[in-house]
């Protein structure tokens, strides 16, 4: 029972980070129908640049809440800016191009970030330690079940940001515009909503969340290299699709499900086939619900 709870807890933490990354995928997908492959790399930049920030400001040497907060804000700001630049430079010119061309541009940007990052003059390929912005402590223990403050923190920050996003999307003018654009590009345009600005804003917002996820990732898995973004990026993408791409609660659900699936299969079924089993589950879910768990069924207009 304790092991079971332990796995659930791990799954929640991992799932929370996946969900934060998946939100960026799903929001961008909503407004642009684009799988933004570079999203995982923006996430990596969030973690990587935080290392340099903490080193430069000295927050890395002395664990403090201030340092953590400042780093988190820094990562969100910087990643938001990066996301905005990527949208302007690489995606906007392709607004009316076929969807798959946009996808390839995204893959190109992703490769570019990874390859530039691996240069000796930039980050270099060697993994870098993520500073201990807060001291890891066990805050609760029941038998063999341990809960650390990092786990609680990651979960709280992830949930907090998601709640914030929810409020933002449902109670601000920008959020309304975002939903309108996601619902129907052209009609939104006709109603005087500046689709271009909304898409730009969505990128900034999604990338900022990826930046935050990067910091949380760094706190939990404190070794970062330029390739760090690829696998969590793919997993979050899978989570977004599983939940129903385009749906914000779906990204949340998908993120937690992938986290739990990984955690529980590794423990109960087989660590050798863990990823294979996770994918089998995913495929079975998709076959039962071909548009993801909370995805809107697109009714064919005839």
């Amino acid at each position, binding site marked *: 029972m304790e092991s079971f709870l332990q796995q659930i807890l791990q799954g929640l933490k991992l799932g929370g980070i996946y969900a934060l990354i998946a939100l960026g995928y799903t929001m961008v997908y909503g407004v642009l129908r684009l799988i933004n492959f570079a999203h995982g790399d923006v996430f990596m930049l969030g973690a990587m640049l935080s290392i340099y920030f903490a080193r430069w400001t000295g927050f890395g040497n002395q664990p403090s809440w201030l340092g953590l907060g400042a780093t988190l804000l820094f990562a969100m700001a910087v990643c938001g800016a990066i996301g905005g630049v990527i949208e302007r430079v690489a995606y906007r010119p392709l607004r009316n191009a076929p969807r798959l061309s946009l996808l390839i541009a995204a893959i190109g940007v992703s490769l570019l970030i990874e390859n530039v990052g691996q240069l000796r003059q930039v980050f270099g*390929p060697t*993994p870098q330690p993520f500073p201990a912005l807060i001291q890891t402590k066990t805050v609760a223990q029941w038998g063999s079940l341990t809960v650390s403050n990092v786990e609680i923190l990651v979960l709280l920050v992830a949930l907090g940001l998601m709640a914030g996003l929810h409020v933002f999307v449902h109670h601000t003018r920008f959020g309304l515009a975002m939903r309108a654009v996601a619902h129907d590009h052209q009609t939104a345009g006709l109603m005087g909503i500046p689709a271009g600005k909304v898409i730009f804003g969505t990128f900034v917002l999604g990338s900022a969340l990826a930046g935050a996820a990067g910091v949380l990732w760094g706190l939990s*898995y404190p070794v970062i290299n330029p*390739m760090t973004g690829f*696998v969590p990026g793919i997993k979050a993408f899978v989570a977004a699709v599983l939940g129903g791409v385009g749906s914000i609660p779906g990204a949340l659900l998908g993120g937690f499900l992938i986290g739990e699936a990984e955690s529980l299969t590794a423990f109960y079924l087989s660590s050798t086939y863990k990823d294979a089993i996770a994918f089998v589950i995913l495929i079975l879910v998709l076959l039962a619900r071909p548009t993801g768990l909370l995805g809107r069924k697109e009714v064919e207009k005839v």
Partner: protein
Amino acid sequence: MKIKEMLLLAAAGLGLIGCGKPGGDANTLLIGEYVSLSGNTATFGQSMRNAIDIAVDEVNGGGGLLGCQIKLIVEDDQSKPEQAVTAVLKLIQRDRVTAILGEVTSSCSIAAAPICQQNRIPMVSPSSTSPELTRKGDYIFRTCFIDPFQGAAMARFASQSLKAKTAAVFTDRKQDYSVGLAQFFKQTFQETGGKIVADEAYQSDDSEFRPQLTAIRAAKPEVIFVPGYYTQCVLIAKQARELGLTQPFLGGDGWDSDVTLKSGGKAVEPCYFSNHYSPEDPRPEVQAFVEKYRKRFGVTPDALAVTGYDGAHVLFDAIRRANSTDGAAIRDALAQTRDFKGVSSRITIDANRNASKELVVLKIEDGKFKFVESVKP
């Protein structure tokens, strides 16, 4: 019309590749190096490349080799075996190198080895530990020990020095290196009367290891053998300590890196791992190299740097003894390498073209790698 354009394009493409001038002039000796400068194992490739750069500078500073300056030509293989083949073909066919150094990972080395063999160009891999490699032919050498030796040595260390009766094994199923070490560790450990109580696995790209570690915790092993690369080992150690696992870790040379100490902190203690050398070793050649490397690159050389450095020097030494740039002559000289004084240890090339050399067991303690014992081949 369109076809003409296409052909022109293709011709231009091939012409561009054709720019490289084959061969070197009379005063340079061309040595090829293929290594992963990009892709998943770039961090390992970088270490090897750095160290080989030092070795080449040393030789060139000391008057060169056979009266020539060594010119090193480095090609990237993106950590992909099929690209390693292309890189080696380019080195041999376009650049006409005399001999080849590389690769870090066994899969890339094994893929490229037949090319060297066919072209009768000696190849020295500094750090590919899969037994398969040197079976590819008599031009293929390595200057590191192989998986069976390392795995078995750690198993014996566990049962004899640590008196462990039970062990858990945590393997990286995606890495041939890790799978190889795990297999020989398990075999030897069981032969010496030990018991493997947990056998778990992960993949190189993973970051979350707690589920498997929880399973290992339940099996209550006395030691945990983690034959992976430092990129994951650090995370594994940290998460294990968080889960309250206090057992010592055992590992292979993949643990050796500044990253392990910097990122691992207290979590990686105690850990015993097999390695090629100890940075504490007072021998002057060790200290000279460590200092040179630190000065130039700012970090302590890791296992791949040391093996890279030794591999390069073993090759240069063989060329000197062969007194020729002929492939067969260098091959024979390489095969006759006896008691070469390397940084790692004395290196002797055995009949199977593998290095017979000492292995050291290091312990991580107080943020440092401490020498524990050495194991003779």
